[in-house]
């Protein structure tokens, strides 16, 4: 790889041992990709705190050791310097403010709080959400970023027109203290054009429709870039957030085009960069039903224990909708309801009275994490209902529960009755 004089100096240790290790990782990574050079980045979203259940085992070695191993792939322990790029923290392992989640995990709460303090002091902004774009980190079109979190990456590329590959914990760690990432994939304009045309033959309107479409398309195109024909109803942030999260779960979609909606897509021809699509695929009634059935393939029992809303983290509008659907009602004695939103938006939900309505019904508004990341659910949960295709995909694999996928209204009804009566309508 070709390095600039500045990059060579960082590699040679001119900015200390941590930056040397970071640059060494970026060079190994860039060569593994076949990249020719690095690109400057000043917007990094990654994971630093020893949050995940497995990494906690390493926490006794201290935060510099955690940073060295998991953020720089360095066996040698180096001291973390101040970050060089604007850096935000994604989801964490636990919601340290809410005892409902903490079930005897005081040690984990302590580790997370110490981690927040340590990495915060190094300049990592504790957004603590999978949706940084909902709480102030909104990159502009063309901005080079280094983001983790597949649902945020696809939003960043397609909806915002900024440029990031799906980075990992190690590469975002290295980017945070060097301000560099390999110039590869979606950083390069020619790689951002569509490959597959998806001819949508059924109406796609509400959030559930968008989730199912995303789940179907992820399986169809895997890592490729779809462009859509026939999506007539105007989507909003919530729908595209769910659509992208689903497409990045069943497949590895990082970029898509909707003519007239996504900023790099003036027209269908423009989406393909003047070339013909490699292939055209149809999304019709059959494809919709198959994707819905796959999403519900783990569900057997109609008796639901746990309802999870807010994957990716809910917007304030979604928290408000859940609150209105629950107003004056009471959860079944057999169910728990957790609604996840970024902590910054929880403040808004508190002030707007939404938290009180949800709590009056017996539910909880939680922040910072989710059941799939934390592996924490109410005790003895066997059957989950969720409005998230992403959570319905991952929770059964990670925790062994059954999962129902449906609309927000279906989920709220299940919370109140204890029975799943959702379906494809």
């Amino acid at each position, binding site marked *: 790889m070709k390095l600039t004089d500045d990059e060579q100096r960082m590699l040679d240790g001119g900015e200390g041992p941590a930056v040397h290790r970071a640059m060494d990782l970026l060079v190994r990574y860039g060569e593994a990709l*076949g990249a020719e050079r690095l690109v400057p980045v000043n917007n990094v979203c990654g994971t630093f705190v020893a949050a995940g259940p497995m990494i906690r085992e390493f926490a006794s070695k201290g935060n510099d050791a955690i940073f060295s191993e998991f953020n720089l792939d360095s066996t040698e322990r180096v001291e973390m310097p101040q970050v060089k790029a604007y850096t935000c923290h994604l989801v964490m392992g636990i919601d340290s403010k809410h005892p409902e989640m903490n079930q005897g995990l005081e040690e984990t709460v302590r580790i997370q709080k110490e981690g927040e303090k340590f990495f915060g002091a190094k300049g990592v902004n504790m957004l603590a959400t999978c949706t940084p774009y909902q709480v102030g980190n909104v990159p502009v079109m063309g901005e080079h970023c280094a983001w983790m979190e597949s649902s945020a990456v696809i939003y960043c590329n397609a909806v915002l027109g900024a440029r990031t590959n799906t980075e*990992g914990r190690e590469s975002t760690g290295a980017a945070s203290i060097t301000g560099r990432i390999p110039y590869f994939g979606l950083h390069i304009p020619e790689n951002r054009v569509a490959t597959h045309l998806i001819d949508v033959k059924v109406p796609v309107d509400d959030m559930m429709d968008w989730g199912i479409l995303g789940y179907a398309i992820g399986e169809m195109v895997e890592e490729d870039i779809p462009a859509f024909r026939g999506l007539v109803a105007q989507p909003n942030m919530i729908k595209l957030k769910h659509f992208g999260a689903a497409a990045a779960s069943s*497949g590895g979609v990082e970029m898509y085009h909707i003519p007239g909606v996504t900023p790099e897509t003036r027209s269908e021809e423009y989406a393909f960069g003047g070339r013909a699509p490699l292939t055209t695929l149809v999304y019709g009634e059959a494809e919709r039903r198959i994707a819905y059935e*796959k999403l519900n393939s*783990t569900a057997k029992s109609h008796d639901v224990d746990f309802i999870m809303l807010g994957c990716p983290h809910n917007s304030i509008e979604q928290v408000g909708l859940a609150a209105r659907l629950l107003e004056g009602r009471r959860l079944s004695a057999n169910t728990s309801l957790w609604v996840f939103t970024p902590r910054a938006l929880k403040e808004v939900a508190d002030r707007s009275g939404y938290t009180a309505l949800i709590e009056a019904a017996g539910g909880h508004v939680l922040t910072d994490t989710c059941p799939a990341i934390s592996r924490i659910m109410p005790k003895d949960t066997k059957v989950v209902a969720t409005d998230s295709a992403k959570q319905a995909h*991952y929770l059964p694999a990670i925790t062994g529960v059954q999962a129902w996928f449906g609309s927000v209204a279906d989920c709220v009804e299940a919370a109140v009755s204890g029975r799943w009566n959702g379906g494809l309508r």
Partner: protein
Amino acid sequence: MSTIVLHGRKVVGGVSEGEALVTRETVSGWGGFDPRTGKVVETRHELCGISLKDKVLVFPGAKGSSGWSQYFHLARLAGTAPKAILYNRTTTKVALGAVVMRVPAVTDFDSDPLDIIETGDWVKVDADRGVVEITKKSA
């Protein structure tokens, strides 16, 4: 015994050998693989329940969460990682995963390894030279 030789591009250097485990389905890290056991846990994956530990994993590429590299990084620390990986499609997930797994890795082959290598074949990987030598189990 007949051997077949493939040539590709080095992703991560080193030399290793082992029994092939082949899948035509892309592989998930976080949410689809358990580093404590080395097993695939994605419910609808053809390898669900099968361990990748000490295998030469032959697969189309990575999919899913950005936790891919971290989970295969944890597999290295837990001793459950594959011995080498051979794949077709380069993405940031699989490339970073290979780097932090620190096992020999090769891609960009002269012929599709998914057409040539079958589960159970013995595979020698010399990633520094980009050479993969396959001894068929049925030969």
